[in-house]
């Protein structure tokens, strides 16, 4: 068990900056998720922690030891990848134990570790089975068991579930979270699946082009994204971004969309983020999540000119308990996740209610969140 600290860590491959000046403190026993689009540097970050990749600049500490020059085998880490080898001629016990056996651990110690791991993973009754007698989930657990018996300080997992079918994936996500609770070990988990990120970790690191964008709890990331990238990356369907101008009328600040909409920013939001006042007359981006747009015809909230606007339905996609509406208002297009009672049809001009307490405003230049 140990914390892991990255200080000004940069990794270059020739001209490619795979990881750019990363600063990160992973707490002891934390379940930290690295997420971001393909090529953003997640795997490279993990590999530097593992010692599989040299660090171009900066330092990495595991516990209180700088490990830049510590070889991987001495770092007390275990790695779990999506493709692992289960040996068909060995039973589950040996598939978990062979590494320890080959490292010449005493038999009693191997027994203890394998039995403990099997207990934790709920596969004690399977120890003398061969891999072909196991389900996909059970196999995955054996692979985890192999990492657990090494009793590492830190687990590094690079998309370990990406080979599984959807159902098993859901099951293994829960299992991995439980496993973390039981093991009480630091885990760093890479995925580019935002659902995995949002449901599994204590904190999430969102990366883009080698740069850490935000490190936060899942809820904070969702509610308070620091920039448009994070706002757009987390959440599905993604947050709507509408070009707007900030205008002030009387004491009220409005997001004005070229005549297509004019939405009032709640006074309390302005009060807590007074810097927004400096944006009056400037271009901003109005961000609103699809679930914060409703069909005004079926919403049980007071609909006013300040919290609604008209849009044309282009596509209707029933999703069971709700309906996705794809809409346009002149050059603006957006998605709304509306109540299944909505009767909106393609071509209809509907009034959209905006849940203004959840609206976001971004600087159009820097794409940073203003509120």
């Amino acid at each position, binding site marked *: 068990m140990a914390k892991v600290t990255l200080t000004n860590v940069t990794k270059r491959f020739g001209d490619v900056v795979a990881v750019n000046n990363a600063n990160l403190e992973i707490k002891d026993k934390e379940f930290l998720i690295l997420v971001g689009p*393909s*090529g953003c540097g997640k795997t490279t970050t993990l*590999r530097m922690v593992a*010692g*599989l*990749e040299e660090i171009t600049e900066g330092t990495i500490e595991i516990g209180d030891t700088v490990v830049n020059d510590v*070889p*991987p*085998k001495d770092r007390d880490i275990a*790695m*779990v*990848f*999506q*493709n*692992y*080898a*289960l*040996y*068909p*001629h*060995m039973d589950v016990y040996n598939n978990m134990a*062979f*590494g320890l*056996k*080959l*490292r*010449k651990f*005493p*038999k009693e110690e191997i027994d203890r570790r394998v039995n403990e791991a099997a207990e934790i993973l709920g596969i004690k009754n399977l120890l003398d089975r061969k891999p072909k007698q196991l389900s996909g989930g059970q196999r995955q657990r054996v692979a985890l068991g*192999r990492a657990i018996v090494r009793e590492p300080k830190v687990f590094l997992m*690079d*998309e370990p579930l*990406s080979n599984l079918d959807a159902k098993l994936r859901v099951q293994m996500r829960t299992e991995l979270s439980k496993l973390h609770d039981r093991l009480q070990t630091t885990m760093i988990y890479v995925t580019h699946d935002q659902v995995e990120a949002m449901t599994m970790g204590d904190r999430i690191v969102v990366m883009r082009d080698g740069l850490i964008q935000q490190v936060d709890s899942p809820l904070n990331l969702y509610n308070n994204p620091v920039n448009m990238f994070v706002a757009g990356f987390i959440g599905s369907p993604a947050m709507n971004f509408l070009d707007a101008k900030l205008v002030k009328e009387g004491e009220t600040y409005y997001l004005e969309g070229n005549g297509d909409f004019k939405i009032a920013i709640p006074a309390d939001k302005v009060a807590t983020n007074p810097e927004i006042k400096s944006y009056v007359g400037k271009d901003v981006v109005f961000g609103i999540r699809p679930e914060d747009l409703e069909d005004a015809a079926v919403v049980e909230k007071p609909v006013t000119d300040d919290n609604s606007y008209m849009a044309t339905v282009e596509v209707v996609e029933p999703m069971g308990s709700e309906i996705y509406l794809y809409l346009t208002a002149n050059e603006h297009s957006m998605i709304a996740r509306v109540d299944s009672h909505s009767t909106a049809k393609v071509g209809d001009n509907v009034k959209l209610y905006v849940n203004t307490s959840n609206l976001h405003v971004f600087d159009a230049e820097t794409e940073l969140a203003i509120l």
Partner: protein
Amino acid sequence: MPLTLKDIARMAGVAESTVSRAINNKPGVGEETRKKIMEIVRQYNYQPNQLARGLAIKETRMLALIVADLSPADYQIIKSIEAYANEQGYNCLICNTDNNLQKEEAYLQLLSSRRVDGAVIIGGDLANINIINTALNKNGLMVLVNCLAEELLIPTVLVDNAQGGYLAASHLLQQGLKKIAIVMGSSKEFLESEKLAGYLQALAEYGLEVEERYILETDGSREGGYEGFIRLLEQGDLPEAFFVTRDILAVGLIDAIKMGGYLIPEDFSIVGYGESIISSVINPPLTVVAEPLEELGRYAAKYIIEVINGRNPEEMIKVLEPVLKIGESSVSRTE
């Protein structure tokens, strides 16, 4: 993890060979399909190196055979790999690392710098972090032979040594022998523990109790074999048969048996392990568990060439079974 051709093929809904041709810019792929495949390749941006392999870097038609510690058995495996590889138009570079990590790293560099198309790693017990990293990070194309990997699935060809131990003990049991001793190296050694496990399994299937005194762990040397027999002799409780897990141990054991004035197989039946020059000079000719070395080499060569050509072997882990070669040392006394 690098995206495999298989993944891309699945996503694009085309055959793997089509993906391979598209990526390698070879003819026979429709423009639309090529576009679709390259879009997936770009979108996932997985390890341009791997793709660059086909695009920019020439094939060398050369394989590195990296051996941890060149044993007589490895020599047979290498000969077999080379024969098959030559048939397929590949040459082999034999790299002996003497279990030295620096030497190994240097040889693995041949792979990461693409001076060879692929490597076969022979022996070494456990794929170390250099090997894992080369497979994972540098997209080194490799096949493991008699070597296990904890972290990663790398195409592997192995011999089931537990099956070998099982065959040896079963052969003796089938002849009505019940008191069968195993003379082995340290059970802490994985290979030895596997053979022991097979021996124990055979006893269990015949409903026999395990006699601890018949499990003789030694230092694995000729002297070890010799002293093993003396130990039993002093205990005054001799078995009817021996399963000896190493050729050199068998030499020592048989020395001791002959010194004691006993006859083989009249007094003791013996089964050894491995067809080697050493076991071939033992008199009487030794019954041995023979590892399928030729086949091992052939699979290794076939697999690495498949991998180089962007195909996954049909079984990622191929486990071959040893066979019993019956000599004169194990013929039942009752016959």
